[in-house]
């Protein structure tokens, strides 16, 4: 067997992205909350996952956005740079377009409202439900937070229970605590 030289492999992955032939490009980003799988489409950031084992994510991303998915680091450079700046405390707002295809209208509405919760502040599930036009849908909002496709950038860690308890987090409560501490949030 003649192994493919690493430089050649990398060159192909870059060329595929530059030629605009990919539905989804993804990579793994090393961060203080562990390795994250990050993925973009031509429309924007479409996934941040705490599960660094790509297989399951890749299957799911292919179903949602198209089968031409490849680990191609170059298109992820802006995302990784902004995440680095965020974890260094130098960035309080992300300047990245997002791609929320495959979500229901209500999910999209809630996630758009979520994106407006400022750095270092927290809100409640009920309040977010009210701002999304369905004040009684706090539980549904909880589910949407739990399935948030782009945590950190869409800051579901800033959503807490009405008593101020952290309640839950898709990436585990330790990570939620770490992110809120990083932002010096009042919880």
């Amino acid at each position, binding site marked *: 067997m*003649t192994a493919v030289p690493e430089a050649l492999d990398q060159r*192909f992955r870059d060329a595929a992205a530059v030629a605009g032939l990919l539905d989804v490009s993804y990579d793994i980003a090393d961060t203080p909350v562990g390795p994250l799988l990050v993925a973009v489409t031509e429309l924007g950031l479409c996934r941040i996952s705490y599960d660094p084992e*790509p297989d399951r994510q*890749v299957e799911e991303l292919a179903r949602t956005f198209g089968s031409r998915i490849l680990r191609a680091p170059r298109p992820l450079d802006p995302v990784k740079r902004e995440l680095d700046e965020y974890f260094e405390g130098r960035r309080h707002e992300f300047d990245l377009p997002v791609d929320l295809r495959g979500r229901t209208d209500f999910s999209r509405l809630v996630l758009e409202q979520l994106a407006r919760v400022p750095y270092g502040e927290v809100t409640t599930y009920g309040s977010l439900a009210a701002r999304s036009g369905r004040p009684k849908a706090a539980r549904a909002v909880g589910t949407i937070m739990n399935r948030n496709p782009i945590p950190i950038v869409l800051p579901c860690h800033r959503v807490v229970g009405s008593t101020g308890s952290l309640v839950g987090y898709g990436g585990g409560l330790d990570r939620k605590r770490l992110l809120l501490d990083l932002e010096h949030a009042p919880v």
Partner: protein
Amino acid sequence: MEAVSIPPFERFYEEHRTAVFGHLVRLLGRQRAEDAFQETFLRALRGYPALRHGRHLKAWVFTIATRVAVDESRRERPRTTITDEPTGEPERPAYAQLEHLAEELPDKERAAVVLRYGYDLPYDQIADALDSSEDAARQAASSGVRRLRRRLT
């Protein structure tokens, strides 16, 4: 036949890149295989959305690789003289006339016919592309040819 879904491209690439590279090195030598490798998988990406199922993907990508290698060889050896006398081998005119018919063959037979008669690959390499034995590759090529003959008569 059971439907075989099309895998995410990353999985397809991971699964076949080593074999495709080896195939290209055998056809072109190490240096030129590198350019052909990239072109092969870029062509595969372009064609990927048109695939209707995930069967015989190795044969499919080997066919692309072989086509790229042939293009590469022709590009490297441009004709410098024009002569009325035929020189060297003809450029597979017989196969060129049959190529459009081969499109209608079942996947495996088409790949075997294209690789054998279009590109003169030996049966051991065709077997490699089809993930089958040499005998099975020979059989696929000959039943493909029989099918083509029936269509022509």
